[in-house]
């Protein structure tokens, strides 16, 4: 979504009281007129929910920008910092290696995107298009894997990582989720929904399986691939329980584990924790603002499968 679309609603919300004169032009999805008072009520409710969902993020941002001399506990609360400063962000970097943690998170998330896209596309294609004995068994394996509650197997995953000597490494953080069964099944469905005729034509023309996959099928499922990529990035960037278990060396921490450490050690320094959380959440909010379409699509496709 473009910036233009994001700024427009702000104007509408500001002009809510004067809605009445614009109301006659507004119709609902059935093409019927929406009454003025109903519209005003709707916007009132929308603004209320907006305050509840976005307010906490803004409060955290505001806290992170308040200087050491400003009272952050005042009552009534002060919503805007009187003298905004980036001082707290410098202090976070002095307290924990926050930029190293961000880099670790970025590495883990990027690796998760690549492995999931490649692995899920290949396996999805094999399940949807290739004929071989054992295809049903392979499909069943992924369906079963999708049903296993990850929280219940973390200890066994941890001992497996120890046996492989990969605990306390970023590779160990990425591996268990690097080709998720849900993504494989999503890609399988996307390939199944393609018309078979095009590939048949290529088959007759002598295209081998790799060419059919890479040149014909894959470009046609780019949308689903984008959904897989975005959710792989978000999942890895936001993950908490697994990195908490597998990483013990503070120099290897990802952002979420680093934040937990910051909170555990400097819980009384609210400005510091606030700055840390803003560093962790800002990249994802930017990503979301740019690629909303795919975030919403992912919910639909993931929920139907999951």
């Amino acid at each position: 979504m473009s910036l233009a679309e994001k700024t427009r609603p702000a104007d509408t919300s500001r002009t809510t009281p004067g809605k009445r004169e614009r109301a006659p032009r507004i119709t609902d999805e059935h093409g019927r007129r929406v009454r003025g008072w109903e519209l005003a009520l709707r916007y009132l409710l929308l603004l209320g929910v907006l305050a509840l969902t976005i307010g906490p993020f803004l409060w955290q941002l505001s806290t992170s920008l308040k200087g050491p001399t400003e009272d952050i506990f005042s009552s009534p609360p002060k919503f805007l910092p009187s003298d905004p400063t980036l001082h707290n962000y410098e202090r976070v970097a002095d307290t924990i290696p926050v930029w190293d943690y961000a880099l670790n998170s970025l590495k883990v998330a990027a690796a998760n995107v690549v492995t999931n896209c490649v692995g899920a596309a290949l396996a999805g294609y094999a399940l949807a298009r290739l004929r071989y004995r054992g295809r049903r068994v392979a499909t069943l394996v992924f369906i079963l894997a999708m049903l296993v509650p990850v929280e219940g197997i973390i200890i066994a995953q941890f001992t497996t990582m120890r046996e492989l000597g990969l605990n306390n490494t970023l590779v160990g953080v990425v591996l268990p989720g690097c080709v998720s069964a849900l993504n494989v099944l999503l890609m399988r469905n996307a390939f199944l929904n393609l018309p078979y005729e095009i590939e048949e034509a290529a088959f007759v023309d002598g295209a081998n399986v790799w060419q059919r996959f890479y040149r014909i099928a894959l470009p046609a499922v780019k949308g689903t691939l984008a959904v897989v990529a975005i959710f792989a990035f978000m999942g890895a960037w936001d993950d908490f329980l697994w990195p908490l278990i597998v990483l013990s060396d503070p120099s290897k921490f990802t952002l979420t584990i680093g934040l937990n450490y910051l909170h555990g050690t400097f819980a009384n320094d609210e400005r510091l924790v606030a700055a840390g959380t803003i560093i962790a959440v800002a990249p994802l909010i930017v990503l979301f603002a740019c690629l909303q379409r795919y975030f919403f699509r992912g919910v639909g496709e993931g929920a139907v499968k999951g």
Partner: protein
Amino acid sequence: MASPTLTTGTPDSRKGGVRRVRRQLPTSPWLFAAPGLLITGAFILYPFVSTLVNSFTDRRTLVPGEFVGLANFRELLHDDMFWIGLRNSSLYVLGVVPALVLLPLLLALLVQKNIPGITFFRSAFYTPVVASIVVVGLIWVWLLDERGLVNSLLETLGASPVGFLSDQWLILLSAMGVTVWKGLGYYMIIYLAALANVPRELHEAAAVDGAGAVRRFLTVTVPAVRSTMVLVAALSSVAAFKVFSEVYLMAGPNGGPAGEDTTLVMLVQRTGTGLTGRVGYASAISVVVFVVTVVLMLLVLRADRKEES
């Protein structure tokens, strides 16, 4: 992981293409599926089986352990912490699921109409879903702090401050609130898709018959999105039973001074990790988590079928 497969896959299939007769080598499907199958097998299915096996052993992180039969499960029966965990995780389901089935539906109805600026509101309501649970947890820890925003607002209104993060039950309730707050946008999107399929004639007919908004909600909307409500109930109840991060962040790693806010997954994490971790015992708790998860799914599906008949 995937790259070796790619490189071995390409020359093979190219050879097949040149000969034109064998366009698909018998091995190529397996080469395509190999990375996924390997990862899934090694890091999901093997750990699952090994959790089941370990639950009958006294394995520790550094000690292989021996078969002990049902000893772990017998110990569970007398372990107060296990019962506290089971209680808290179950309470979590009871507290969170009704809210997550109903509130996102109301929210979806609120953002359904295409009025100016609605895309902005939809996106804004989804933002908590995008943020990490750690970020969300810490934001609310600060908001609900004894001297935080919520209490200072309460004070301004003349109320006395509430110890959201000091009372055992209030902590659990606050954590549930955070879970609901973070989940609203996600389930709202699911409901929006379902609402788009409700035929408008139904609404119009009900309106012509003089049904009010509440009446129409109960007699038209709810029956039309019932299967989605069941889906949301199933998804949210399984997720709620496995709650970890919210309570871990708000009550502390040990679930409060005496561990009275511990959930089952927190107990698994605390028991099974570290150099002295009791892998066998933690696996037994995990098996309980599996069983309850399956039971929850079956309960939701059964409730669905009963309502239908």
